[in-house]
């Protein structure tokens, strides 16, 4: 006999994700993203901005 639970599950709309699932996906997504964000600003970009800025401070540290 089919259990109520499994029947319910198979009828569930695939587009509806539980809050808990969304929270977990969100956590993973942010952890992956923040891993890159936490690397900060690589030198090449700081240099690039100085160069493009033209203000290329005469004292190029």
């Amino acid at each position, binding site marked *: 006999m089919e259990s109520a639970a499994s029947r319910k599950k198979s009828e569930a709309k*695939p*587009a509806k*994700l*539980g809050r*808990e*699932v*969304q929270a*977990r*996906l*969100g956590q*993973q*997504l*942010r*952890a*992956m*993203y*923040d*891993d*890159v*964000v*936490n*690397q*900060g*600003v*690589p030198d*090449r*970009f*700081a240099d*690039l*901005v100085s160069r*493009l*800025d*033209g*203000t290329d401070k005469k004292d190029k540290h």
Partner: protein
Amino acid sequence: MDESVRKSVLAAVPSLRAFAISLCGNVDRADDLVQETMVRALANIDSFQPGTNMSAWLFTILRNHFRSEYRKRRREVEDSDGHYADSLKSQPEQHGQVEFTEFRKALAQLPSDQREALILVGASGFSYEEAANICGCAVGTIKSRVNRARTRLAELLSIDGVNDFGPDEQTRAVLAGGE
């Protein structure tokens, strides 16, 4: 260039890189993309409206540039998402990204418009409205892309909401079984 403008451009770099890596799946290519974005942005800095969101402005430039480049490459390379997946495979693990490999692989299987919507809203922290502006589409479109992306990711990572998923254990098992 105004010091505050300069600061806000630089402040956006870490997040631009994270977005770019999520889009193209390759750190070197992503950094080139960020560089090209900054060159364009600074050349057109006069069209930035002070008081508006610098980060959103830069994301828009990066996203549009990626799209046009991507389309060009697509003609050259043929399959877009297969190419993306390959670039992930061929890329050696970098900077402690090992733990996100499974997640990135799953992300790589999403259609690119769903992927970008999910990242903008779920990771970059933009509102649906801001994401819609960045992608040049309706708010409802962003919402449905994000929903579809989440649903598909949950399937790929086999998170069904009942099991407690130890992310790595479980996703590794799933991926190992599927390959």
